[in-house]
């Protein structure tokens, strides 16, 4: 009888074949990323609500118009560079995951190193931008910029900018640290002994999420 196969009153999934056909850790990473998406979503929607409730807002092309070494008057240029750095780092991460599928240690190591370098480059760009804005007098609670129509602006603009890009930057930093850990584990043959590179996939999911969030942050703060 079918009922005899269920010996104990089981309330939790006891293991065995994954219902989603993917590894447990990967499912959990997806759940974490979903909760993180809600956190970022809440931040960005809060920003949008305040922006919609304000009579004026600074023009991003006037605020973000400097490029290191080239001076000011170059709107969108620096942020384009940052965006491309992050896209390229995402590509090298996919390639690392792909190499992991083929148990190609050398490919994993090379692509992870590239990802780490691009991640660090992005953080460097952000550090420069924050320093530059800080020198112009912008910080949490201080907004030297005027609204696009020439009226006085509130500190909402800088508060949201530094909070959201800061939160994203902290995610990039965590991602770089995770990737460095992955690199060390690959170099010490931990995955080789384990027989699979599934851990790289989880780090990859996190890294792509960071890139995904940047797509939204970039659009909401710099483009529109």
């Amino acid at each position, binding site marked *: 009888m079918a009922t005899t196969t269920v010996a104990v009153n089981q309330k939790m999934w006891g293991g065995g*074949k*994954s*219902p*989603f*056909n*993917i*590894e447990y850790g990967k499912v959990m990473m*997806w759940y974490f990323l*979903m909760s993180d*998406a809600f956190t970022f*979503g809440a931040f960005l*929607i*809060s920003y*949008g*609500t305040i*922006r*919609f*409730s*304000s*009579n004026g807002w600074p023009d991003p*092309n006037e605020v973000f118009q400097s490029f290191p070494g080239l001076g000011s008057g170059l*709107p*969108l240029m620096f942020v*384009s560079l940052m*965006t*491309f750095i992050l*896209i390229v780092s*995402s*590509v090298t*991460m*996919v*390639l690392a995951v*792909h190499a992991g*599928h083929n148990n190609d240690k050398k490919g994993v190591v090379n692509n992870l190193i590239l990802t780490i370098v691009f991640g660090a480059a992005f953080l460097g760009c952000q550090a420069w931008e924050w320093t530059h804005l*800080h*020198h*112009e*007098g912008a*910080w949490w609670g201080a907004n*030297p910029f*005027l609204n696009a*129509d*020439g*009226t*006085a602006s509130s500190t909402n603009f800088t508060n949201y900018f530094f909070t959201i890009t800061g939160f994203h930057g902290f995610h990039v930093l965590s991602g770089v640290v995770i990737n460095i850990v992955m690199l060390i584990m690959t170099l010490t043959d931990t995955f080789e002994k384990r*027989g*699979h590179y*599934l851990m790289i*996939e989880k780090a*990859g999911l996190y890294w*792509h*999420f960071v*890139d*995904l969030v940047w*797509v*939204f942050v970039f*659009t909401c703060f*710099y*483009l*529109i």
Partner: protein
Amino acid sequence: MSNLHTTEHTEQHGGSTKEIWNVTIILSVLTIVELALGFWMMKITSDATRFGFKGIIVILMLVKAFYIVAYFMHLKHEIKNMIMTIVVPLALFIWFIIAFLYDGNSYKNLRNNYDSFKKSQSEIKVEKKEAAHGESHKTAE
């Protein structure tokens, strides 16, 4: 440990190197189009046209998000239950965005209608202060 191995072997490894490069090209082209629209928008003064441009940029942003999640994060190649588990809860965002932005806009209109002092304050033009590098620390603290 044996669980790990069984899942590993049954997992679908869709997504070839060719697909990775195709998605890279799509993402780069979309970004370039977004930036071109951004540059073009600077020259436009009409609010309605600017709004239209912003709408297009937001749609392009969503297309980029789809490509990153579907191909780079491999979600398109997972089984349907997994896709639904992730995507369906995110549908809440549709309501969040509409409700909150509508509310923000409504608050602005109510305040402009009933608080004429606040409205007149927000219409005063100010002189642009020149950004001085030396002053930064004073303003920052």
